């Protein structure tokens, strides 16, 4: 199982990663572990720009030949950008889950609670625990 967990990102229990992007927005994708578990992706649906999301709201779908999973918004906020390249090349998410395979950018509501997110080391132990 592939397990690349960059130390500069935050993580969720539902296997999303969160990056502090420039101008205060957060960039969100799914982890290397998640893409590897799903297998070759054939379709990725990202949320529309302008959509308001609640924390934990299902907002994107990643679909492989044999499975489809929802992606949940780690925090409440408004979608300010989405990765439209994925509609033509879903494999970007398999090849580069933390880079070209990003899903969307979120402008969080004031007072968004980042405390619930995990550090890389916490996510690593979480994965180890899940694997038991």
């Amino acid at each position, binding site marked *: 199982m592939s397990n690349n967990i960059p130390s500069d990102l935050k993580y969720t229990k539902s296997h999303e990663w969160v990056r502090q992007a420039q101008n205060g927005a957060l960039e969100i994708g799914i982890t290397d572990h998640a893409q590897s578990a799903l297998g070759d992706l054939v379709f990725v*649906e990202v949320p529309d720009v302008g959509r308001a999301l609640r924390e934990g709201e299902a907002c994107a779908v990643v679909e492989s030949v044999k499975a*489809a999973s929802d992606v949940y918004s780690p925090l409440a906020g408004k979608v300010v950008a989405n990765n439209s390249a994925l509609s033509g090349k879903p494999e970007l998410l398999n090849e580069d889950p933390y880079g070209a395979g990003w899903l969307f950018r979120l402008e969080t509501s004031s007072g968004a609670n980042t405390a619930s997110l995990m550090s890389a080391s916490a996510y690593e132990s979480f994965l180890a625990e899940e694997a038991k």
Partner: protein
Amino acid sequence: MAFIPHTPDDIARMLEVIGARSVEDLFDEIPAELRAGVLNVPAPLSEMEIARLMTERAAIDGRPLNFIGAGAYEHHIPAPVWAIATRGEFYSAYTPYQAEASQGTLQLIYEYQSMMCALTGMEVSNASLYDGASALAEACLMAVRSNRGSSSRRILMPRTVNPTYAQVAQAIAGNQDISFVPVDFDRTAGRTLLDALKPHGGQDFTALVVQQPNFFGSLEEVDALTDWAHENKIMLIAVVNPTSLALLKPPGEWGAVIGGARGADIVCGEGQALGVPLSSGGPYFGFMATRMHYVRQMPGRIVGGTVDMEGRPGFTLTLQAREQHIRRSKATSNICTNQGLMVTAATIYMSLLGPRGLEAVAQASMQRTHDLVSALSKVPGVKRAFTAPHFHEAVLLLDRPPAAILAALSRRGILGGLDLSERYPELGHAMLVCATETKFDADIDAYASALADVMSASRAAA
């Protein structure tokens, strides 16, 4: 593990492991008042007994001369259709498990989908749904998933849509927080009133349903309706009769190009007219087609063309990640079943007739209905209700309640039409009549003279 039922011992051991006292306990979450209790099922019958029972039941129907349509149509079914459909290679109600091992079945469904796309002018069709009414309910659910610009979950449902379909859509989609707003019709023309839509312009609606021909048999102004919907960012759900598409403009070409797209967004309907007998109401099949853009929101199975490892053409079930065996409760549908055998018959029917044959059926049905309406309107106390052009059905107005008239005709072996007075009290003494290519001049004459008799007897008795 042997494939045998659980013994009482097995059951007791399993219950013990999970800590349940009885199998009944497993259904605890279903409130007592919703349980069926004791089912009143009669004792089993032998093959001989059941054959006699069914023969007796069938005899009750008799061989009436039928002028009722209203969603199910009596068309001639060429003998090869069911001779081929019931061959062992085809004779199954379902898409097979291990579908790809049954390339012939998949190819047939693929051909069916291609034919439905050609008829409707759409880009992709599914492998069929349960029936026309539930296909409309599914189309409404699909529109709610697909129309990202709308959050209202409100759907405009004209009163010219088959009222049974509207009722089924309400029963299925209404429980998913979707509401239906009726749209009135023009009492003179017998089609949806464009002016009745105007007040809804600029508001958040998810979809507009348009049935063509509508429940009254009248032709709707589909271009204007489609454009109005698209100008207001409302999806257009077309409910169509597949036979009529041999003559009418396909829904994929309704209206103008607005926002880069043209025509209906979702097309659905009842497929029974394509080679499936009336058969006391079923089994029939529903169909659904859409644009590629919405394919992931479409319920039901889809067969795709592909190549095998050696590059040879083959067929496969595709986009299965939308379906319930993979997506579980988040599947595009959990009530969609495909009507494999009915689709087999329909595909053979369409193959045998071809585009010209289907057009001849549509032409003849339309002509027969025009002949019928003209013959019946000459009967004193009978007139046409609406002025809009019609396909193979029309509404007639009587000078007295249709119920007694239709009952008297039925005693003479004629099913004269469908009484509309309960569904549409504002129309008065209205009934819906239909004639397909199966009706000869003599049949129409027989109906007209029987109607004249029955009407005058009723007048004399009053």
